[in-house]
């Protein structure tokens, strides 16, 4: 039951992502750029906030008037900027929330990825105070509520000797100094800490995407601008501490926990906030545990650096040679950073199944699923295919097309594809497969075609697996697929958790294509004629 519930999350997410991909294309799918979109909204809030600050009076007596002037008198720019500031801040909370849910549902917070997940929690503790102090500065009814409630919340902690909430007892007790402190925290303090926290959050990721695609950024900004023009952000009645605020226009994105103060207690709010944050921090440490990291076989590593270039998590680096072999450098794996995706093994030029002279031990490999096992599984699958359809030539004549499918463990259930004429081999990531395996399967006629089943494009579980595989096959990334391998016999299906029917449709189309192609026949090598000069 629990397993089914846990499986329902990725399935549902996959369906929603597919809808968005249909509208935006996978390259612009907002669900594939949630982190980058959050950073983009942060910058929109920064730029609009700087503009608003130019006209803002940092004082209890004039703050409200200055914001009102900006909102109503200079509505065409100042008002829009203020609205953009609010809506971009709210948008960031939405993208953060969806980002977290997605990473959790897809399990992208475990293993070596714990660091990004873990460092995301303090980010939350900076984003929310940043927004809350922003509402404080408007000095309207909401600001009054926020000031009192936040003070009551902080007063539970043994920080201040005197109750902070006393600053907001009456209109006379409010001081400019306290207001200036809030302005400082909102304008300088929290944004600087937030930038540092974002840097920390991305520290262990190679080639982090910090900007969304241009089209998506323009579309998002346009949506926020239209929203700002149609429904500009407005102040509520000015703060008046002689009265208790009621019927407050409430920003639920930032203040969701605040009603707990009124219906529970400040201690309860802290319990919920600290408890949920602790739980979030501990999640990556819960089982299942991560697989063993990639290992380097020095005798097979020449320090070419392809694994370093392809690793999505900066887990592999080059170090001076330590074994005396005549190479300058060697690959070194930082097990703490390794997600055991196997992309490094797929990039290693020694990961070739075509070798006959020695055992298949690449320069870098996954102990949990070594390249030797992948070759054994490939050959076993080929043998089963041969058992079904005989040799390749007879198979083509008899109409029984043989397909060998490689799939990644994060995508669709590849085992379900195993039917007559289709055999499967499962990999950690599709880019664990070196292109030489495609060479082996097709040119040695182990199958008529190869189906590669991976995550959806632009949303690879291991970030770059699909992209690297595309580039290897297209001859744009080392190790290249050899030119002798006919690409029409390779079908790439970057479908993620696609439905069985969708995969079946693709498989049938591929089968029909292979049927039309007939059995593989090597292209004859052109003979050269050499003439000897007289």
């Amino acid at each position, binding site marked *: 039951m629990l397993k089914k519930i846990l499986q329902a999350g990725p399935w549902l997410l996959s369906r929603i992502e597919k809808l968005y991909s249909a509208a935006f294309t996978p390259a612009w799918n907002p669900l594939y750029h949630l982190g980058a979109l959050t950073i983009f909204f942060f910058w929109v809030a920064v730029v609009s906030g700087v503009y608003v600050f130019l006209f803002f009076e940092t004082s209890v007596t004039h703050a409200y008037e200055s914001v009102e002037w900006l909102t109503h008198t200079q509505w065409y720019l100042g008002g829009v900027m203020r609205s953009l500031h609010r809506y971009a801040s709210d948008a960031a909370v939405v993208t953060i929330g969806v980002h977290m849910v997605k990473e959790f549902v897809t399990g992208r917070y475990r293993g070596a990825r714990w660091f990004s997940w873990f460092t995301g929690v303090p980010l939350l503790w900076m984003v929310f105070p940043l927004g809350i102090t922003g509402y404080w500065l408007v000095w309207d009814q909401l600001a009054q509520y926020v000031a009192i409630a936040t003070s009551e919340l902080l007063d539970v902690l043994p920080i201040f000797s005197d109750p902070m909430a006393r600053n907001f007892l009456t209109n006379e007790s409010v001081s400019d100094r306290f207001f200036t402190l809030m302005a400082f925290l909102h304008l300088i303090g929290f944004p600087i800490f937030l930038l540092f926290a974002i840097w920390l959050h991305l520290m262990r990721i190679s080639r982090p995407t910090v900007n969304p695609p241009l089209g998506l950024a323009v579309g998002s900004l346009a949506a926020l601008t239209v929203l700002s023009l149609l429904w500009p*952000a407005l102040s509520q009645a000015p703060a008046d501490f002689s009265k208790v605020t*009621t019927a407050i226009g409430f*920003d639920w994105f930032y203040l969701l926990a605040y009603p707990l103060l009124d219906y529970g207690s400040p201690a309860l709010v802290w319990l919920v906030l600290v408890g949920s944050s602790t739980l979030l921090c501990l999640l990556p440490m819960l089982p299942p545990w991560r697989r063993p990291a990639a290992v380097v076989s020095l005798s097979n590593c020449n320090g070419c650096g392809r694994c370093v270039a392809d690793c999505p998590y900066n887990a592999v680096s080059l170090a001076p040679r330590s074994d005396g072999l005549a190479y300058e450098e060697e690959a070194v794996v930082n097990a703490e950073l390794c997600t055991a995706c196997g992309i490094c093994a797929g990039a290693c030029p020694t990961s070739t199944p075509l070798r006959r002279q020695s055992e298949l031990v690449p320069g870098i490999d996954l102990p949990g699923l070594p390249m030797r096992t992948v070759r054994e599984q490939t050959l076993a699958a080929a043998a089963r295919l041969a058992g079904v359809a005989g040799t390749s030539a007879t198979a083509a004549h008899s109409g029984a097309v043989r397909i060998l499918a490689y799939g990644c463990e994060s995508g669709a259930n590849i085992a379900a594809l195993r039917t007559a004429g289709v055999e499967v081999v499962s990999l950690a990531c599709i880019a664990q497969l070196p292109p030489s395996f495609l060479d082996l399967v097709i040119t040695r006629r182990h199958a008529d075609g190869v189906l590669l089943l991976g995550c959806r494009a632009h949303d690879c579980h291991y970030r770059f697996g699909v992209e690297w595989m595309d580039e290897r096959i297209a001859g744009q990334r080392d190790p290249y697929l050899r030119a002798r391998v006919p690409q029409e016999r390779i079908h790439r299906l970057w479908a993620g958790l696609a439905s069985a029917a969708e995969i079946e449709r693709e498989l049938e189309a591929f089968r029909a294509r292979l049927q039309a192609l007939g059995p593989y026949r090597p292209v004859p090598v052109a003979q050269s004629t050499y003439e000897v000069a007289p």
Partner: protein
Amino acid sequence: MINTGLRYVGQAIAYAAFAALLWFFATAPTYSPIKPDAAMIKLSFIHVGQRKVECRKMSPDEIARLPPNMRLTLDCPRERLPVLVELELDGKLLLRHELIASGLSHDRASSIYEKFVVPSGRHQVTARLRDSARTEGFDYTRSTDVELKPRQNFVVDFHAESGGFIFH
């Protein structure tokens, strides 16, 4: 494959849905911490209780034993007495609290911040405070009849130098 026109329509719907989500939850639904016809009484003050042990004049011998730069004539132990406070509404006790002086040596002020949501209307508010070593009675008492309007924030503060309780 979806054609470009349909894709733009899909994008427009997605952006509109996102914008609608932002617009709605940025201000709605409204939130009321108290009912519109209720009022609030806040009791809050910072007050230093009297010394737990009275200052004692030191003898010349005691003074002589002190380092030259620390020779005072009075020995004043730092610890302060707890402050006892009571708040009554219409003769009914809302709060009775003994406030321990803050600081590691309990030598600083006692403070309180409490709020009570009450029905609006006419009420009698009585506040009492004891900051001395007496065991019965109070050093400060103040009572008032007040017409609390809906949403009114009625503050009970205390300043010994101003004569005791202050009602805002």
